[in-house]
C-alpha cells in the first residue's frame, strides 16, 4: 500500500483537525495512524481480516471487526465527519449498499479506487491481456477485486444514486492529472456528499 501514499495525502488534506473519522477496510491502520498523528482525529477502523486487524491493534489504532458486505449496521446516522474507503471499493460486491451506508453514518465520504479506464489498462486489454499495474497489482486469478470500473462509470453511479461529487482528484502514478482523467489517471480520489 505504501506506493499509494499520494491518495493518503489527498485524504489528509480533506480532514479537519479533531474530526471523527471512520476508515473502512483500514488494513494495518496506517492511514488512521497518520490522521491521528497529523490531524488528531478520533479514528476508528473497520477490518474483517484477522491478520490485518491485529496490525491495527499493533499500531494502536481503534479497529472494529465487521463484514462490510453487511453494511454498517449498528453505527449511528451522521456520527462521523468523514467515512473513508481507500482502494477497497473495487473489492466489494455491494457497491451501492456500502456507498449509501458511508453517507448514512458520515457527513462526507472519501473514496479512492483504481481506474480501470487508465490508458495502460486499455492498452493491455487491446493486447489481449488483463491489466497488471501499480494500481492493479494482482493477476486476474488472484485479485481481491470483484468490481472493475472506470472514473466515468463511477461518475455515472453517483449521478444515478443522487450522490454529490464535492471534489475529485485523479493521479497517474502519483502525479496529478487535470485533463482526460478517465484516460490518463490510474487512481481517483473522491469527496462525496448527499445531494440536497
Amino acid at each position, binding site marked *: 500500500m505504501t506506493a499509494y501514499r499520494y491518495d493518503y495525502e489527498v485524504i489528509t488534506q480533506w480532514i479537519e483537525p479533531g474530526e*471523527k473519522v471512520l476508515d473502512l477496510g483500514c488494513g494495518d491502520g496506517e492511514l488512521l495512524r497518520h490522521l491521528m498523528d497529523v490531524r488528531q482525529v*478520533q479514528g*476508528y477502523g473497520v477490518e474483517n481480516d*484477522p491478520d490485518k*486487524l*491485529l496490525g*491495527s*491493534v*499493533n499500531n*494502536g489504532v*481503534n*479497529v*472494529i*471487526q465487521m463484514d462490510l458486505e453487511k453494511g454498517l449496521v*449498528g*453505527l*449511528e446516522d451522521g*456520527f462521523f465527519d468523514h467515512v473513508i474507503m481507500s482502494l477497497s471499493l473495487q473489492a466489494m460486491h455491494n457497491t451501492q449498499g456500502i456507498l449509501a451506508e458511508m453517507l448514512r453514518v458520515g457527513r462526507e465520504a472519501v473514496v479512492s479506487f483504481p481506474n480501470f479506464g487508465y490508458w495502460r489498462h486499455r492498452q493491455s486489454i487491446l493486447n489481449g491481456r488483463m491489466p497488471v499495474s501499480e494500481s492493479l497489482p494482482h493477476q486476474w486469478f488472484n485479485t481481491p477485486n470483484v468490481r472493475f470500473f472506470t472514473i466515468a462509470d463511477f461518475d455515472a453511479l453517483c449521478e444515478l444514486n443522487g450522490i454529490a461529487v464535492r471534489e475529485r482528484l485523479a493521479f497517474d502514478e502519483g502525479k496529478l492529472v487535470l485533463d482526460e482523467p478517465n484516460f490518463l489517471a490510474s487512481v481517483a480520489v473522491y469527496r462525496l456528499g448527499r445531494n440536497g
Partner: protein
Amino acid sequence: MIAPQSVGVVVPQRAEFTTPLALRSGGTLDNYHLIYETYGTLNAERSNAVLVCHALSGSHHVAGTYADAPHNVGWWDNLIGPGKPLDTRKFFVIGVNNLGGCYGSSGPNQTNPATGRLWGADFPFVTVEDWVESQARLADQLGIRRFAAIVGGSLGGMQAMSWALQYPDRVGHVAVIAAAPKLTAQNIAFNEVARQAILTDPEFHGGHYYAYGVVPARGLKLARMVGHITYLSDDAMAEKFGRSLRHGRNTYSYDVEFEIESYLRYQGDKFAGFFDANTYLLTTKALDYFDPAFEYGGHLPAALARATADFLVVSFTTDWRFSPERSREIVYALLHNRRNVSYAEIDCPAGHDSFLLDEPRYHKLLSAWFDRIEV
C-alpha cells in the same frame, strides 16, 4: 517440574476488611476477607497492576501451581506468565476470589463472624457491583490507586466493564471477553433451571446442608450439566462426541449410552465434588441481576458514558451463550461515547469456552493489546 513461561509456585494470600460493605441487596457485611494471588512485581510507580476477574466457577488461582499440588494449574495459566500475552515481566497481575465464592473468600462456606457458624444460605446476595467495590478496597490495601488494565471473560468481563463504570479514574484499559451487557431471558432461563436443580435437591436443606454433613451433589451436578451444554457449541459437541455410543450399540437403558451423556455426567460429578452449591446459586443470581443500562432506561450508551478506559472487546463466532451480537452492543455503546475501543470476533469452534483456550489469533490479539499499554 515447572512448565516453561509459568509464573511457577504461587501462594494464596488473605486480606481482611473491617469497614462495613453496604451491598446492593440492602444487606451489609460488617467485616469480610478476600483470598487473592499475585504474579509479577508491582513497580515503584504502582502503575503496572492488572486485575483478572473470574467467571462463574473460577477462582483467585489464575496462574501458576501450588507447591503441594503441582497439577493444580491456574485457570488462565495459558494467558499469564513471563513471555505470555499478559506478561508478568511487565505487569503485576492479581487474581481474587469473589465475595460469596467458595475458594476461601467470605462466602457461604465460610464462618459468619457474628454467629461462629458457617454462613450457608444466610450469606447475603452479592452483585457484580459489590464485587467491584470489594476489589477496589483490596486495591487500596495493596497501594494500587489505578489499574493499568482489568480483564475478564464471561462474568469476569462483566466485572471488568463494571469497573470502568464504577471507578472510571482507577482503570486505564478494560478487556471484555465473551461477555454481554446483560443476560437475555434465555440466559436467565438456563440459570433458573440450574438453580431449581439445586434448590429442589433433598440434600439442600434450605442452604444449610453443611450442618447436616451433606451436599446437594445431585442438584449441583445437574446445574453443571445444563451449564456445560451452553458453554460448548453445537459443532464442538458434534465434533467431539457426535452420536458415538459407549458400547457400540443401543442398550435400551438409562445408563450411559451416548458419549455425550458420559461426558456431561463426568463433568457434573467432578464439579459437584468441589464446588459449593450456595456459591453457584449466588453467582448465577449476580449474573442475572447485572444490567448497567437498567437505571438509564435500558439505554446502554448512556450507561457507558461514564467509562473513560480504552476498551478491547472480544467475542467468539460459535459462542451462543454470549453471542458476538451481545459484544457488539457494548462496542457500539462505547463508540457512541467516542471511547477508544477495538473489537475482534475470533473464529473458534469451541463456543463460550473459547475464551479459556490459547487459540493463536486470540492470544496474538491480546499480546498486541497488552503490549500497547504503557505502565
